[in-house]
């Protein structure tokens, strides 16, 4: 039989993260990426705010006043939680690279999540009179 011309066969479309079957490790990875993005945005914002001090006393005070609004207290509590998660998950990953904790990866993820939520709530409570 003559050989049959074929189009290049398709791959199954990129369900990279398999929406129907997401597991703990994937969630940890996605959270780490998202918290990383948030932290980067925060860092840039923070530099802009603090950087106002180079301009003038008034500009700096205005900036601090702006970020003293209640909504920012909420965002700051969130930030504390995000930092906690990103740091603890970061340690979890560094542990893996050193050969530690690989077989306890799900437990370590949940510890990071629980502590991040705890820090978020504690921050809200501690700052409640500012809200």
């Amino acid at each position, binding site marked *: 039989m003559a050989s049959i011309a074929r189009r290049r066969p398709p791959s199954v479309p990129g369900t990279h993260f398999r929406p*129907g079957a997401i597991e703990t490790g994937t969630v*940890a990875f996605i959270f780490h990426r998202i918290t990383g993005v948030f932290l980067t945005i925060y860092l840039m914002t923070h530099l802009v705010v603090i950087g106002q001090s180079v301009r003038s006393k008034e500009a700096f005070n205005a900036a601090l006043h702006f970020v003293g609004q209640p909504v920012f207290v909420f965002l700051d509590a969130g930030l504390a939680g995000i930092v906690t998660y990103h740091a603890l998950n970061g340690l979890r990953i560094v542990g893996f690279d050193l050969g530690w904790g690989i077989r306890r990866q799900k437990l370590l993820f949940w510890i990071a999540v629980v502590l991040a939520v705890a820090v978020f709530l504690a921050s809200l409570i501690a700052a409640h009179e500012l809200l």
Partner: protein
Amino acid sequence: MAQVQVKVLRYDPQRDAEPHHQDFTVEYVTATTILDTLVAIKEFQDGSLTFRRSCRQGICGSCPMRVNDRERLTCMTRVAEVIGDNGGELRIEPLANLPVLKDLAVDLKPFFDKYRAISPHIIHAATRELPEKEFRMSDERTTHLQQFGACIQCGACYSSCPIVATDDDYLGPAALAKAYRFANDPRDDGRTERLNLVGDEAGIWRCHTIFNCTEVCPKGVEPTYAIQQLKRMNVRKRLGFG
């Protein structure tokens, strides 16, 4: 006998531009496996349904597929396990990250190319003297390596890895686990060569410890574990600790 609605992703290269789902109804009991349903469809409903299978006991690696989005060895997975008591849908699709040849059969050449890329065999240095009988090797070391030697090269891990999905060059979990198995075998003299092979951009450093491979491996190989150990071994080698 209960019935299950099976949605199978079909693709006929001679007729279809894209893969598409086709519905079948199949009877099943508690013991019925996913592979059993595919066989039932092929034998009595549509003989053109194409898929690979051989041993039906989880050792040959022919039959992994995506079942409701998750990689499974279809001969060892029961229908009841997947659809639960509510009798949901059963969707069967081929492995991801590999070109589809026809229906549920994929082209494993890229997978095996990466297997070959890590020199998957014992390397003896010219200076190594082969004993008359067996090399002596501890029971502990053997048991440890047997876990990684248990790999049946089915491709489930490769299909589940999001890094493989986004990077054609990434060696993938199975090849890296195999590299670890050799790098830790006292009878092998290729350790340095292998660590160099896996220690580059397309190797161990692409692993972000997402753990999908470990979750889906039907033989408990834990490729993530192997890859992290390779990272550690690689760093130690570069820092001079051997």
